[in-house]
């Protein structure tokens, strides 16, 4: 009998597959294609204290083996999320993770205080969005700055706290260790890679913000290496993110040390990607005679 359950910071996930923030909305669109209660968890679209319209100009650009995006955290704001989306999400029988972004430490703190009052299962602190002018990634590159945000949030946060790391961290292991020391219960890595695309006919950058976040299969080997290095260095659960398109990619992350994975870009290619990955993991374990994920976690 195989068992794919994982326990991260005291929260039980029925399987290790989490829909990644920014790729799954608040779940409603995907409910048309499969019962989202099948998911291990769902990380919400990045939430900010106030509503954001997101960025102007081109927002999506396809590149070899990946997608660049510059959505700019379009979201309804924390209050509207709590009022309009959370009751629906909590009726779905899966772990709900609120992904939170901010321009200032104070915004992070106020947002988390508001979420403390709800029945959200976990908070994922996004200190790594590459597509907003203030805050975002600026918190996610230097370990001491990230540590300060996490420390301030930890003081008020009553929920299990995941910190989402940027691949732009000067030193990903040092960044991970600082965040854990500051109070992170788990780490998710990595966010999109800051990248550049040029329109040579217009002789300018494709995106208004010049750079945008790269995701998809092309980032997987680099993200996988980071998960491997961080999992060897810290004692908290790691959630692997980056180019997971099928169950084989998910198994690779688990073997590299991840407790769970987040599936992002694949949701755009196939609305049923998450559920197919869950089934693929189960079939793989069955075929290989493996009964729990713990048996293969971090074996690399």
């Amino acid at each position, binding site marked *: 009998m195989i068992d794919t359950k994982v326990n991260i910071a005291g929260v039980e996930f029925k399987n290790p597959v989490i829909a990644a923030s920014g790729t799954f909305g608040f779940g*409603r669109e995907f409910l048309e294609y499969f019962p989202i209660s099948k998911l291990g968890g769902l990380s919400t679209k990045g939430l900010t204290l106030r509503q954001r319209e997101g960025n102007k100009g081109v927002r999506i650009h396809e590149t070899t083996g990946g997608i660049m995006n510059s959505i700019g955290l379009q979201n309804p704001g924390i209050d509207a999320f709590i009022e309009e989306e959370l009751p629906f999400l909590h009726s779905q029988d899966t772990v709900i993770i609120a992904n939170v972004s901010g321009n200032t430490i104070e915004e992070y703190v106020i947002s988390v205080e508001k979420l403390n009052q709800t029945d959200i299962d976990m908070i994922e602190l996004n200190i790594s969005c590459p597509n907003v002018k203030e805050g975002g990634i600026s918190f996610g590159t230097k370990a001491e700055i990230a540590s300060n945000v996490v420390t301030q949030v930890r003081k008020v946060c009553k929920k299990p706290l995941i910190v989402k790391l940027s691949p732009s961290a000067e030193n990903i292991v040092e960044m991970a260790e600082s965040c854990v020391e500051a109070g992170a219960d788990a780490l998710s890595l990595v966010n999109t890679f800051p990248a550049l695309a040029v329109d040579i006919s217009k002789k300018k950058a494709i995106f208004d913000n010049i750079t945008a976040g790269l995701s998809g299969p092309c980032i997987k080997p680099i993200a996988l290496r980071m998960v491997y290095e961080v999992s060897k260095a810290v004692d908290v659960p790691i959630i692997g993110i980056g180019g997971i398109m099928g169950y084989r990619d998910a198994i690779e992350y688990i073997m590299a040390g991840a407790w769970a994975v987040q599936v992002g870009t694949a*949701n*755009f290619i196939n609305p049923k990607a998450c559920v197919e990955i869950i089934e693929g993991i189960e079939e793989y374990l069955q075929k290989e005679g493996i009964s729990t994920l713990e048996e293969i976690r971090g074996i690399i």
Partner: protein
Amino acid sequence: MKEGYREVDISSNTEIAKDIFELKVQIEFNDSLGDPGQFYMLRSWDFDPLLSRPFSICNIEGNVVTFLYKIVGRGTNYLSKLKPKDKLKVLGPLGNGFNLNVNGKVALISGGIGIPPMIYLAKKLSAEIDFYAGFTNEVYYMHYVQKYVNKIYITTEDGSTGQKGFITDIFRPEKYDVVFTCGPSAMMKKVVEKCENMIPVFVSMESIMACGMGACLGCSIKTKSGMKRVCKGGPVFEGREVFFDD
């Protein structure tokens, strides 16, 4: 519950003008195959290119859905190589369609490869229709639309067929009760401006999209009632709701 991507057979894939293809696929669905203005995401590849490509419904006859597309990049180039009996993966029908309950005299205005939804709309509307079509040079598909409309107005940029110039140059809004349009953003903006606040105008917007089903927010546009996703809130919008310059 929707099924997600389904593999379907290609019936035909024919070049009908330079770099313009007519693709017919057999879709064995139990539910509706779609309404005018709705679209499908198509892919004939695994992960390279990564994204599917959105195409409006041009026609439905029985279980055969027709799409028109222009070769503009790698995805459409791959599509152009497909032959009858080859497989294609389709997701749809997606998005909202045009309101078919209109009265009076109707103008359908298309520019370039904005023509497909206008073709199917012409077939499905029961009103009196004038069809305006602007092409760069080669004219296509007008034979098909002829039987559904009262009059066809054609412009080409090189003057090879119809009147030389843009289709918006010859459109006279005062003759109509309702206007539907699909084509380049600048053309649709001009149509909305010409109609001022006298006539209702419905536009079918185009935007770069990743998922086609409302998740990525890549296709969001600014409207008078906030940000709207072209794939989910559209592609059909009330013309005056849209900010064409944003």
